[in-house]
């Protein structure tokens, strides 16, 4: 399996994709800084307290990398069908299910890793900025940070899992557009809401677990249907 994963990474020139992800992080940093600067002093200032600030960062990070995952799904799985490279890939003496599993593992691990990493990175930037130039009213206690880490891990895991949901829509007609549209819609639903986002680090774990399970279930099904399906 490791061998298959490394082949996939080579096939899609993964260093380049990591470069894109770094660019996304940079854009996020700029965007969040902009919110901090332009809204400063407003009544509903986004960075009024640490919990709100972390929530804000996490929501944007999650939205970005869930859509990023949609892009990876389009490229690595749907695109493989679209460009008909499946008619080469599936003539290899390797179980199709394994080939797809390798791709899903990469996408899942990458999305999880990037969300966790970006949350921590941007959170640290926030803490550092506040230290030099205080603008957040409350202060951060060490216990809060300790509690935050497992929350981040669990929420990133579920985000990475639910980011696989668009595969179900994309695979129906092997359409890149359907994959991307469903992944944007998913983000719109999941990352918005009247009282804070539907799914976030602080939200009801039941919802995120349910959606995460749906994502894993969908990828599981798509893997097992492959063996008997025709490749056209």
């Amino acid at each position, binding site marked *: 399996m490791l*061998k298959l994963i490394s*082949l996939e990474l*080579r*096939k899609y*020139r993964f260093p380049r994709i990591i470069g894109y992800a770094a660019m996304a992080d940079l854009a996020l940093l700029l965007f969040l800084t902009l919110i901090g600067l332009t809204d400063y002093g407003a009544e509903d200032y986004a960075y009024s307290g640490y919990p709100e600030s972390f929530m804000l960062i996490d929501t944007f990070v999650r939205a970005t990398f869930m859509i990023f995952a949609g892009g990876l799904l389009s490229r690595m799985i749907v695109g493989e069908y679209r*460009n*008909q*490279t*499946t*008619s*080469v*890939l*599936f*003539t*290899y*003496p*390797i*179980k199709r299910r394994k080939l797809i599993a390798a791709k899903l593992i990469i996408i899942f691990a990458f999305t999880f890793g990037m969300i966790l990493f970006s949350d921590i990175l941007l959170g640290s930037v926030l803490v550092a900025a506040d230290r030099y130039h205080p603008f957040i009213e409350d202060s951060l206690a060490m216990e809060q940070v300790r509690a935050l880490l497992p929350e981040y891990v669990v929420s990133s895991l579920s985000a990475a899992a639910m980011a696989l949901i668009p595969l179900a829509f994309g695979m129906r007609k092997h359409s890149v557009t359907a994959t991307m549209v469903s992944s944007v819609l998913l983000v719109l639903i999941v990352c918005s809401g009247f009282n804070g986002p539907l799914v976030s680090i602080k939200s009801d774990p039941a919802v995120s677990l349910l959606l995460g399970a749906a994502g894993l279930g969908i990828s599981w099904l798509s893997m097992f249907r492959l*063996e*008997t399906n*025709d*490749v*056209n």
Partner: protein
Amino acid sequence: MTYIARTIGVTKAYKGTEAVSDVSMNIRQGEIYGFLGHNGAGKTTLMRMLTNLIKPTAGEIELFGEKLTPRSYEVLKRMGSVINYPVFYDDLSARENLELHCDYMGFPDKRVIGAMMEQAGLQDTGRKPVREFSLGMRQRLGIARALITTPELLILDEPINGLDPSGIKELRDLLKRLSAEYRITLLVSSHILGEIEQIADTVGVIRGGRLIEEVSMERIREQHNEYIELRPSDVRKAAYVIEHRLGLSNYKLVDGHTIRIYDPGASPSELIKDLVRHDVAVESVFKRAHSLEEYFINLMKGDSSVA
């Protein structure tokens, strides 16, 4: 004679319409099997079934003596194929594509890649992504990829598409050499008769999803080499003379007025002389040197009047 690949009553239906119906095809070890049919006759569908990309609705496929199931994977190691349009990972270079292929196939010897690229005339493509290749280059790269793991069975779907005349000739020589020197069994499809005729040992003709003929080229040549066609004034009498006086038995009445004589010994001038001597006037006579093309074209078109 052992069979490398066989299909037994294979049918593939899409939503009730059969793309391939009840095809029983026998590919013997070491031969070049030419698969002839118009576009859309079902050639590609059958080839995709042989490589396990699509599954037959009914019937069985045997490869290397073993039944092909949706979970047959090991057998794929022994095959190489270029089916339909040769597809690659377009962002990668020719060499990267070949390296990936070797890795996926579990083929350890990377040294052959360079030699293969040279043979395909692609050694100067460097880091150029396959996206920018011409169809001919893709076609050559596709064949190189199929060959690099030294398969026992090579399946090529319309391999001459996009090749220029010298490329076609090169490919033809290559295929013959693969068969003769390396004993690779080849299944080559085409809608161009001339190509198949020049290389194939056995020809299968598919029309409307049905395999309507499967015959060795040798036999076809024997049957359809040359004939003399003549229109005598009195057909019955002429036939009598031809059979009993001239001792030629390999002749045929075509449409009530015309006789075709297939005996290789017969010559038109002798024939006329003999017929006239026996009081049979001849209205026209001509010698047909080559009816193979007509034979196949009629088979493919579905006209059964010419046998």
